């Protein structure tokens, strides 16, 4: 049986690799993200309510909304989890005792394999498509409304904004370098529907992507990515983001050499689940906002 929304929000970590990584990206959007965990705590923080009977009603309504599959919340959660759950060989267990100490990347070089540009590009663009699809499932806008999604990006804040910042930094700048947008667009251009079909993440979320076949789905992925390039570029330019700047901030918890950025990208990919972590926070927030308004 899948986990309840209470278990998912209560189970969010306060101190693991994902949280360390997101904290070290605070320099991009200072003070915007705080690691909100715990179902009841999230109700109190989001609503600002102190009345216990209201908190009880909000929690119960949120549970009913989440458990009602027709409302799309479970689908959104599944998307956030699935896009993040590729090979996690170095996951929580192997790194559990490393939190709090600085991890030398050198020790993991033989355990991670940098991805080829195509696989890396598909990863990056699929994460973006999942953001768009989950946004629509959570907020209720029709599933292929790219324009609505792009407009709402301007209003992204908190954990949603942090997720996008991490996408740009960890899945864009680190593996591809400063011109990651152009590189990803060019690689996507050279990717065939057959190559897309071989990607395991695509195989998992395939049925959720609009389009009648792999070619039209590839097209949708390209359009989605293209539509947010302006937003991503603005973020990079306005914050002066470079791979070096990102890496120097990550140095707080991981020791990296500048010529090993492809290994760093592969290491972060298998040791963190920032999409699932912040996605759970976004979903809980929206669910609670709806519940408190409806009771």
């Amino acid at each position: 049986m899948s986990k309840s929304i209470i278990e998912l929000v209560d189970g969010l970590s306060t101190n693991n690799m994902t949280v360390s990584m997101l904290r070290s990206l605070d320099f991009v959007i200072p003070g915007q993200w705080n690691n909100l965990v715990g179902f009841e705590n999230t109700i109190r923080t989001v609503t600002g309510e102190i009345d216990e009977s209201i908190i009880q009603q909000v929690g119960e309504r949120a549970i009913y909304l989440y458990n009602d599959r027709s409302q799309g919340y479970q689908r959104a959660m599944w998307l956030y989890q699935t896009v993040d759950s590729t090979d996690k060989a170095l996951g929580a267990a192997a790194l559990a005792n490393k939190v709090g100490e600085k991890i030398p990347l050198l020790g993991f070089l033989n355990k991670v394999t940098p991805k080829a540009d195509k696989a890396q590009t598909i990863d990056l663009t699929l994460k973006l498509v999942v953001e768009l699809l989950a946004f629509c499932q959570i907020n209720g806008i029709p599933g292929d409304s790219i324009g609505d999604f792009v407009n709402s990006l301007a209003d992204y804040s908190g954990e949603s904004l942090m997720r996008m910042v991490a996408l740009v930094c960890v899945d864009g700048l680190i593996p591809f370098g400063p011109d990651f947008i152009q590189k990803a667009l060019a690689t996507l251009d050279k990717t065939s529907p057959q190559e897309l079909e071989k990607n395991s993440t695509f195989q998992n979320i395939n049925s959720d992507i609009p389009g009648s076949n792999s070619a039209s789905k590839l097209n949708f992925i390209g359009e989605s990515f293209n539509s947010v390039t302006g937003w991503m570029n603005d973020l990079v330019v306005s914050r002066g983001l470079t791979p070096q700047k990102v890496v120097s901030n990550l140095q707080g918890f991981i020791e990296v050499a500048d010529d090993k950025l492809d290994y760093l990208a592969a290491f972060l990919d298998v040791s963190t689940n920032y999409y699932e972590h912040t996605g759970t926070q976004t979903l809980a927030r929206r669910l609670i906002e709806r519940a408190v308004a409806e009771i």
Partner: protein
Amino acid sequence: MFFRQGRKILVALMLSLLLFTTACTATKTPGRFDQAQQVSNQQKSGQAVAKEATQGSEFNRFFPAASGEFQRVYTQEKKGFAEAKLKKDGKDLAMLSISDTKSLPTAAAKFKTSTKQINGYPAVEVGTTQTAVLVGDRYQVKVLSRDPSFTASDREAWLKKFNLNGLSKLQ
């Protein structure tokens, strides 16, 4: 002899361990939301929103318009529910919402004891951050503060800016 005693000790140890572990399980207090989780989880779909609930897109036109330094950003639009954020200078001030109480009759029931009216509709204060009116015995319109500077009187003023009469004719 020693062997026997050792066995006794071992049995005693095992028994106390058993007692200890069962005591641990027994004392786990049930969470305040466990019952709701259990009841709602018995159905797969349709337990939260009524079939006949009005689509959220129908509600958008009754929201107050953005004006002056206030911005209105629509955030959610689901069956039986629509919500927008009220912002000023980039800061969230309040949430504005319309919901169909067909899905949640208890939400409408609280207005039965209402002693106050806004534009002729029964109104209640909910908790410490919300003010609500019930329109046409069915649609709940709420303003929820998201900043301490946004007071109960601000909530009332913004409730009056909704097209409540128009909404009452929707059903």
